[in-house]
C-alpha cells in the first residue's frame, strides 16, 4: 500500500493522487499493488440532446414567425397559431414522455389534454363548434378502442389498466352533456360515444367488478 506523507494514511486502491489532500503519491515500498475498490464510472453526457435541440427549434420558430409577421403584416394572426401549435405539441409530448411507463394512463391523459386543446383551438379560430361536434366524441371512442387494443396486445394484467378503463368509460359519457345542453349541431358522434361508453363500462364492471373494487381500495386507502 502507498503511504501519503501528508495525511499519514495508507491508500488501498492504487490511486496516484491522495483522495484526502490531493497530493501526488510517491511510490514508496510499493510491493502490494492496490486493487480497485470503487470502479471509475465515466460521466454520461448528452443525455437529453434531442429534447434540447427540439426546444431550441421551437423557440427559433416562434421568434422567426413573429419577426416575419412584423415585417410583412397580414390579416390573419398566423404567428399566434404557430405558438399555440407548438404549445400543444409540447404539452402532449411531455405528458407522453413522463408517463411512458404506464401506457393506459398516458392515453387517458392524452384524451384530456387534446380535448382541452381542441376546444381552445376551436374558440381561437372563431367557434365553429367542430370540437364538440366531432373532435371530443371521436377522441373518446378512439381512446377506448386504443386502450383495449394496447391492453390486449401488451398482455397487461387487469389491475394495470382497469382504473384507466373506468376513467376512459366515464369520460366517454361526458358528450351526453353536449346533447342535453344543446351545444352541438351534429349529435351523431356524441350519441355513439355515449352508447359505446355505457357498453364499455358495463362490460368492465360486470367482468372485472372485483378488480375494480380491489384497485380502488388500494389506490384510495386513507
Amino acid at each position, binding site marked *: *500500500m502507498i503511504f*501519503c506523507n501528508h*495525511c*499519514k*494514511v*495508507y*491508500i*488501498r*486502491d492504487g*490511486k496516484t493522487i*491522495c*483522495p*484526502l*489532500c*490531493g497530493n501526488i503519491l510517491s511510490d514508496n515500498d510499493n510491493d502490494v499493488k492496490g*486493487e*480497485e*475498490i*470503487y*470502479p*471509475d*464510472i465515466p*460521466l*454520461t453526457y448528452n443525455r437529453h440532446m434531442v429534447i434540447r435541440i427540439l426546444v431550441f427549434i421551437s423557440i427559433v420558430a416562434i421568434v422567426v414567425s413573429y419577426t416575419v409577421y412584423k415585417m410583412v403584416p397580414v390579416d390573419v394572426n398566423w404567428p399566434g397559431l404557430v405558438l399555440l401549435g407548438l404549445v400543444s405539441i409540447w404539452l402532449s409530448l411531455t405528458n407522453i414522455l*413522463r*408517463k*411512458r*411507463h*404506464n401506457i393506459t394512463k398516458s392515453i387517458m391523459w392524452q384524451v384530456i389534454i387534446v380535448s382541452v386543446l381542441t376546444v381552445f383551438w376551436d374558440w381561437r379560430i372563431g367557434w365553429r363548434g367542430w370540437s364538440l361536434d366531432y373532435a371530443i366524441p371521436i377522441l373518446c371512442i378512439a381512446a377506448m378502442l386504443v386502450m383495449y387494443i394496447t391492453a390486449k396486445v401488451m398482455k397487461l*394484467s*387487469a*389491475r394495470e389498466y*382497469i382504473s384507466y378503463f373506468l376513467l376512459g368509460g366515464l369520460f366517454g359519457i361526458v358528450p351526453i352533456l353536449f346533447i342535453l345542453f344543446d351545444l352541438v349541431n351534429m349529435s351523431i358522434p356524441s350519441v355513439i360515444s355515449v352508447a359505446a361508453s355505457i357498453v364499455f363500462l358495463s362490460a368492465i364492471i360486470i*367482468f*372485472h367488478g*372485483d*378488480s375494480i373494487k*380491489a*384497485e380502488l381500495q*388500494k*389506490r*384510495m*386507502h*386513507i
Partner: protein
Amino acid sequence: MNNPKKVEWSKLDNASKYFPATCDERDPKVFRIACELFEDVEPEILQQALDITIEQFPSYKSVLRRGIFWYYYESSDIRPTVKREEKPVCAPIYRKYEKNLLFRVFYNNKRINIEVFHALSDGTGALWFMMTLLYHYLLIKHKDAFLDKKPELNYNASISQKKDDSFSRYYQGRHYKKQAKVKKEKKNARKVYLIRGSRLEENRIKVIEGTMSAKAVLDEAHKFNTTLTVFLSALLLLSIYKDMPVRKRGNTLVLAVPINLRQFFESETSSNFFSIMNIPYTFDEGNTELKDVIGKLNESFRKELTEERLYQHLHRLMSFERNPFARIAPLPLKNLSIRGVNAVADRGVTTSISNLGKIHVPPEFDSYIRQFSVVPNVRRPQMAICTYGDRLVINFASPFRETEIQRFFFESLANMGIKIEIASN
C-alpha cells in the same frame, strides 16, 4: 378477458412515507451496504443466492406506487438481476413514473454491493438482507467446506415479523401526549452552521472509506471513558470546526444521529424502524479540546437515549400520519407539505453520523469475509460506521468536491497512531 391475479399490496410504515416525498436527483435517498470477500465474486452464484434470498424477503419484491392519498407497495414479478457495478455510488433508484424494484445487487472484483431505496428498509433491515444473501452465496460457493456442518444463519425472523410495521405497533395513540409531561425544548437561538461546498457533476457523491483496527480506536475512546460513536462524533465535530470560517465559529453545529429502535422496542422487522436525535454543540472559547466535546456529547447522548424521549419521538412521528386532516389530503399536497417541512428541518442539521454497530456472521464464514462497509444516503457531508471483527470501516460521504473535513478527521485519527487504509471513488 382472463381472470386477474389477486393483488397483494401493503401500506408504507411511518418512516418510509417520508422518503418518496423528499427524494430527488440531488438526494435520491439511497444507501449502500458492501461486503468485501477475500476472493473475486462469481456473478452466477451470486444470482442463485439472490434468487433464494428474495423469496425470504417478500417486501423486496415490491414496487412503489402512488395512490390518491398515500403511496403503497405492490407486489411484482420482476426478477432482480445481479450486475457488474456500472452506476455512480448510490445512484437514484426510485423514479416517479417507473415500476422498478427498490434495491439493486451488483458486484465489483471482491465486493458484493447492495443499494437500497430508504423507503424499503433502513440500514439494519438491509444488513439482514445482505447477511442472508451472503449466507446463501458462501453456502453455494463453498459447498464442500460446509458438507459436515452447515453454519447457522443468525437472523431467523418469520415473514410476518419481517413485514411488521413496528412504528404503529408501539404507537400509544393520540392521548399519549396528555399523560406524558412534555417539556418544551429550549429554542436554540444561535444559527445552525451548514457546510458549503461545490457540488460534484451529475450530483455524484464523494466517498472516502477509511479502514482501521476497531480495537485501536476503542482503546482511544476508552481513554476518555466513552463509546465509539461519541468518540467519533466528537472528532467529526472538531474536524468541521477546524474547517469553519472564523466569522461563523459562533454558530451551532447540529449532529443528527439515527437510532435503531429495535434495540429499545422488540422488533425483527426488515423495513424501517429508526428515529433520529439531533445533538447541538457550540464551540465557545476554551472548549475546543476533544475532552470537552466528548464530555458534552456524553451528556447529550445520555439525555436523548431515554425511554421517555424515544416514545416522544415515536409519538411525534406517528401523530402526523394519524392526523385526520393529513390523512385525507391528496398525495401531491402531502408531498408538497412534507417537502416544505423537510426543507426547514434540513437547515437545522450540520452533519450526521450513523453507526450500524458490530456485524456478526457465523464463525465459519470468518475466513471468507474481509470487511463490510456502509455508504449513507447523502444530503450533506456525513458518516456511516460499521465494525466487523477488528475491522472498523468509517465511510465519509459528501456531495461536495472539497475534502478538508475528511482530511482533518482521518488525520486526527492517524495522529493517535492508528493505521488507516483509505479507499475512495
